[in-house]
């Protein structure tokens, strides 16, 4: 009898567990049918607040804390539910894919580059002439599809280049005025690296090639090649092929970085070094990075400044920083009108409310909206100064990288081989990955 009771209770426990399991699962597995009729489903879900609700699938992990706090404030002030979910670093497209299929998909999401426009334009509301578009102070960071629909709208922009710790440069007996082109940069960098033992710091921070850091080279530094290849124009769509005309210039700067840094080039493949910490600790004077690091650097290195990618191109004394964005809001066209309206109101609040926009700007650096708080980001101020001095802004042509993850992964693999053995044959491989790989991936996407 006892045994039977035990068996019975075990069975019950198992059944209960399974039932609980399906309770959670069934909601998701219904998604395909439901989202066809997304609108009625949406309005049902939003019943308690007749005004609709906001679901923002956020792209920037560093922004998450601020957003959760603002979501709470918004709920208190306006009574509208705001749910913010942040995709883990580097998994935005996977998360977006999965979330968009659910019965309550994001109402606000990010379409950051031309590939994103291609994939998601059918899910994006045309933002032309909307309340949020009217708040913008520039059109420079918006994305349109081929029919001229305003698919997504920039909510911040950033710049990248080479971050320098001027105090260390001076400690090494040089001055920032020496660095006005590649020759100047090379002299200073190589001198610091040669005397690293005696100075107590090196030229560049580690140039790890693992997933947490390789994008600084395959995404950002690669931009100098694309930028100059545009020959004074700017791409409006992804070109099917590259010429690779400025590969030598990319090599100049890349070689300078990996050969004059804290970590030997053949130890970069699996990474494991914290370049940001190295810079903050004053172990290195230069780092290839972007304006989003300002908030974390300003206390440790208050004088940190950003200089352009000097790479040996003629006339580069007039170069500025690389400015652009991948942070562009899109509203889900398949959400209910109430949710779309609620989302729009929330966006306008973020860029006009003094407290909210101040908090956003503190994290984002700058927001290109008339009513937003003033920028406090030193690197973005550097960018503005270069522009004011008549230097050219290097646009983010890198945003056109076709099939970006696969393209960059190949480039990383080629650079790893090159880092371990800097032979001409290995550099040819890098070139193949960089130039021919572009055409291959372009075909993959468009062919």
């Amino acid at each position, binding site marked *: 009898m006892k045994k039977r009771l035990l068996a019975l209770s075990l069975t019950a426990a198992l059944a209960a567990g399974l039932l609980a399991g399906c309770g959670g699962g069934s909601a998701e597995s219904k998604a395909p049918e439901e989202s066809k009729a997304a609108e009625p489903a949406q309005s049902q879900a939003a019943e308690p607040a007749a005004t609709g609700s906001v679901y923002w699938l956020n792209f920037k992990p560093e922004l998450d804390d601020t957003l959760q706090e603002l979501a709470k404030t918004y709920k208190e002030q306006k009574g509208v539910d705001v749910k913010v979910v942040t995709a883990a670093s580097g998994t935005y497209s996977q998360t977006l894919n999965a979330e968009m299929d659910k019965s309550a998909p994001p109402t606000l999401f990010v379409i950051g580059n031309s590939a994103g426009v291609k994939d998601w334009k059918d899910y994006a509301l045309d933002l032309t002439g909307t309340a949020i578009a009217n708040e913008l102070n520039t059109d420079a960071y918006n994305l349109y599809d081929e029919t001229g629909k305003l698919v997504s709208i920039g909510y911040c922009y950033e710049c990248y280049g080479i971050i320098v710790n001027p105090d260390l440069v001076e400690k090494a007996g040089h001055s920032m005025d020496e660095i006005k082109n590649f020759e100047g940069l090379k002299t200073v960098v190589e001198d610091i690296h040669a005397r690293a033992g005696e100075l107590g710091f090196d030229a560049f921070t580690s140039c790890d090639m693992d997933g947490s850091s390789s994008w600084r080279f395959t995404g950002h530094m690669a931009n100098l090649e694309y930028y100059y290849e545009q020959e004074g124009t700017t791409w409006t769509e992804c070109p099917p092929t590259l010429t690779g005309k400025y590969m030598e210039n990319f090599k100049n700067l890349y070689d300078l970085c990996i050969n004059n840094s804290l970590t030997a080039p053949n130890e970069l493949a699996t990474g494991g070094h914290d370049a940001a910490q190295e810079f903050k600790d004053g172990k290195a004077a230069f780092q290839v990075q972007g304006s989003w690091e300002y908030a974390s650097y300003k206390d440790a290195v208050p004088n940190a400044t950003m200089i352009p990618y000097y790479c040996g191109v003629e006339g580069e004394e007039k170069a500025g920083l690389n400015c652009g964005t991948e942070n562009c809001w899109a509203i889900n066209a398949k959400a209910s009108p109430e949710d779309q309206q609620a989302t729009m109101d929330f966006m306008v609040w973020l860029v006009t409310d003094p407290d909210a926009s101040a908090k956003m700007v503190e994290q984002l650096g700058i927001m290109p909206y008339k009513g937003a708080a003033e920028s406090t980001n030193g690197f973005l101020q550097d960018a503005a100064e270069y522009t004011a001095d008549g230097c050219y802004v290097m646009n983010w042509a890198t945003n056109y990288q076709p099939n970006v993850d696969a393209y960059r992964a190949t480039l990383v*693999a080629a650079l790893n081989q090159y880092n371990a053995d800097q032979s001409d044959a290995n550099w040819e491989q890098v070139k193949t990955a960089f130039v021919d790989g572009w055409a291959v991936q372009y075909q993959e996407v468009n062919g």
Partner: protein
Amino acid sequence: MKKTTPAYSTQDDFGKKKPLQLAFFKNPIRRWFPLFLGPVVIAFVIGFVWPFLQGIWLSLCKFKLISDAQFIGFGNYAKALADPAFRHAFWYTALFAVVSLVIINVLAFTVAYLLTQGIKGSNLYRTVFFMPNLIGGIVLGYIWSMIFDGILSHFGTSILLETKFGFWGLIILMCWQQIGYMMIIYIAGLQNVPGDMLEAAKIDGATKMQTLFKVTIPNVMPSITICMFLSLTNGFKLFDQNLALTGGQPFLIQAGGTTIKTTEMLALNIYNTFYGTNSASQGVAQAKAVIFFILVAGLGLAQLAYTRKREVQQ
């Protein structure tokens, strides 16, 4: 038409047929079976059957989101089979599965055999050997990539730079993780070898080797079957360790810019096809996944049938 057995008819041991309804409702367990079986069946349908069927359907479609898939026929399968990276991944995975199957099972059996010989501290050893199995694949991949690189960096190279390092690295990792698990299964099998048989063999003057090969191994065949099945399918399905240890590097960059990820296995190839590219390729990835399923299921069943034949009845 011949009379066929009705689906729910029962036959007792003597082959006499009982009327269906009576037999069905007399026994309380049979009367209540939907209550016990229902939740499991529902969960199985939701968690497995439905997604599985949907997966097959999607492999015939072009889609970005599964809710608006567009039927396109067998084009995805043609593309999947024509993909050189997929074919490379297949042969690489097959080689890996076979090598890891042999090494893992030989070592696991050896360890199990030694630990059933009454060595002092057997339980401690068993625990220690089993523990690696409790660590997740991704974590393991990163830890081992550091260990390997810690060694290889002395020789100016890295696990990401040579295909053979990646291959053997993964074999070592898998052995380290799987041997303990298989060992437990083998120990259970070895403990079930009838003592009288062993004693009889001893009395008959069999050597240790003869006892091992003529008595012990035939008696643990069921364990060997299950362990081989597990390590073969594990080898084929391997994903997270592969992703974390090498991620497919090094790549073979061919003239013209196409690449083959030399240490990419099937599951990772499917993942990369699905997420690394555009919406046209998601159907292809799905087709690859269906091919992958057929392959793993076919191989697994064939191997089961083969080793089952060698099991002895006690």
